[in-house]
């Protein structure tokens, strides 16, 4: 129902100024505590990619973005082999941790939804 992105309360939180003021520091702390930045990942690298929608979204990245993504995966798996996080200067900075894939997933999901809507359309005779 939600596609590869899953359920998110972020839009609701962002829409309320008070709520986002309280939740943002918590969210920042949580993102750091998850530990993926220590392995040089960005948040969008963690989304399960073994489905058609994600494959289409990944194909919409620019060649440079696709190369960088593959590089982060290789570097992280090497770090995993060594049983140690990357050296600190290679950790992902908060400013670098952008949602580079999310817009593409959104557009793919919108297309999937539109296709489903057209497929299940009921045509009524013009009055």
């Amino acid at each position, binding site marked *: 129902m939600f596609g590869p992105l899953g359920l998110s309360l972020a839009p609701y939180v962002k829409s309320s100024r008070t709520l986002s003021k309280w939740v943002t520091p918590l969210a920042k702390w949580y993102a750091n505590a998850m530990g993926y930045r220590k392995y040089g990942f960005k948040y969008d690298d963690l989304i399960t990619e073994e489905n058609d929608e994600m494959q289409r979204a990944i*194909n*919409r990245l*620019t060649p440079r973005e696709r190369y960088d993504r593959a590089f982060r995966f290789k570097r992280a798996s090497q770090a995993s082999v060594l049983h140690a996080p990357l050296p600190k200067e290679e950790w992902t900075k908060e400013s670098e941790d952008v949602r580079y894939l999310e817009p*593409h997933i959104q557009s793919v999901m919108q*297309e999937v939804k*539109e*296709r489903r809507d*057209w497929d299940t*359309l009921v045509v009524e005779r013009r009055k």
Partner: protein
Amino acid sequence: MLAARASTARNAQRLARSFATVVDTTGVKVAAVDYNQPTASVTVLVKAGSRFEPKNGVAHALKNFAFKSTGSRSAIGTVRESELYGGVLYSALGREHLALTAEFLKEDAPYFVDVLTSFVTSAKFTRHEYEEYVAPHVSAETEAATRDPAIFAVDAAHSLAFRSGLGSSLFAPAHNDLTVDDVKSYASSVFTKGNVAVIGTGIDQSTLTALVEKAFAKVAETSAVSAPSSKYFGGETRVAGHGGPQTVFVGFGTAGSPSAEHAALAAHLSTTPSVKWSKGLSPLSSLPEETSVRPVYLPYSDASLFGLLVQGSTPSKVKEAGQAAVAALKAASKSIKAEELKTAVAKAKFAAASSVDTREGLVRTLGSKIFSSTDASLAATLSSLDAVDASAFSKATAALLSAKPTYVAVGDAKLPYADELGL
């Protein structure tokens, strides 16, 4: 009685304006022909053919971008909604024009005019659509074109004959570095008011004008694109074929607007018989077995290419047929019998008149004239053909032959060279 008389009056009126008049609507030229056909069609004609493209293949990519997502609806929305209305959408590219056409039932005109015009006014040109849908189609069409020696030969002949401008290929190169940004910038330069004409068939002029006016209300008023006027060069090239018959194209081009003499010459040499199962009376009707010679006459706005497309199963047969074709062309440039000319002119007139019967032919005939605001009526074409006489015919043919020939051989290495055909 009164009713009958009224309908005759209406019929007379309809006959009187049976050919389209071009109306300038807020900068966009609109022409419509309504013979009371059961279905209607609208063609948006844009001066965006391959002669105007800044980079090889951009026009071809733009053609394949037609009916993808726009500000009004997505690509799948366009397809599914058109299916619900039962219409047909297609785009075609020429060296001069890009034509976007919709055929539909008469009452659905507002929807289909919106589909066509929204591509001109608000196409999105997204990168993923280019990579997922457009680029594969472009390369498939290029591949298909290289497999057809006739298309390939005529395309190569254009680049020899006119070099840049009209010489640029209709097809994108097989390995190109086109990006969606190239297409986008080309589209923004050609999708302007002065560059667009709308031709309707089976639709009332005032209905179409109102729809077009509404659609183009917000488009910027800019002048039409211009390309440097064409010059004829000529030359010789030989290309290895990818299967298909052995093909030779012998062409001659002229700069300047197309003339009726060349149309008559094409009709004179045409091997299509008027009666089924006969060989016809063309000077080329007795060719060796398994060969064919087709006259190719391609008029453009400021130049024309006349040629003979010789095809055969083996190089030696092509050589024989090619020699016969060139000899016939040379004979026509010396003199032509009065009755032969009469036949040729009649044939050319019939071809011109009958092409207007079909929807595609009508759009082609109107499209060549709508931008230059010359007399778009069929009568003008027919009377210019009537004016062709024997001496003018031979003179025009001799002038054509005096230029350097354009010679293209596609196929075996043993295919004849230009001098072996007597050029």
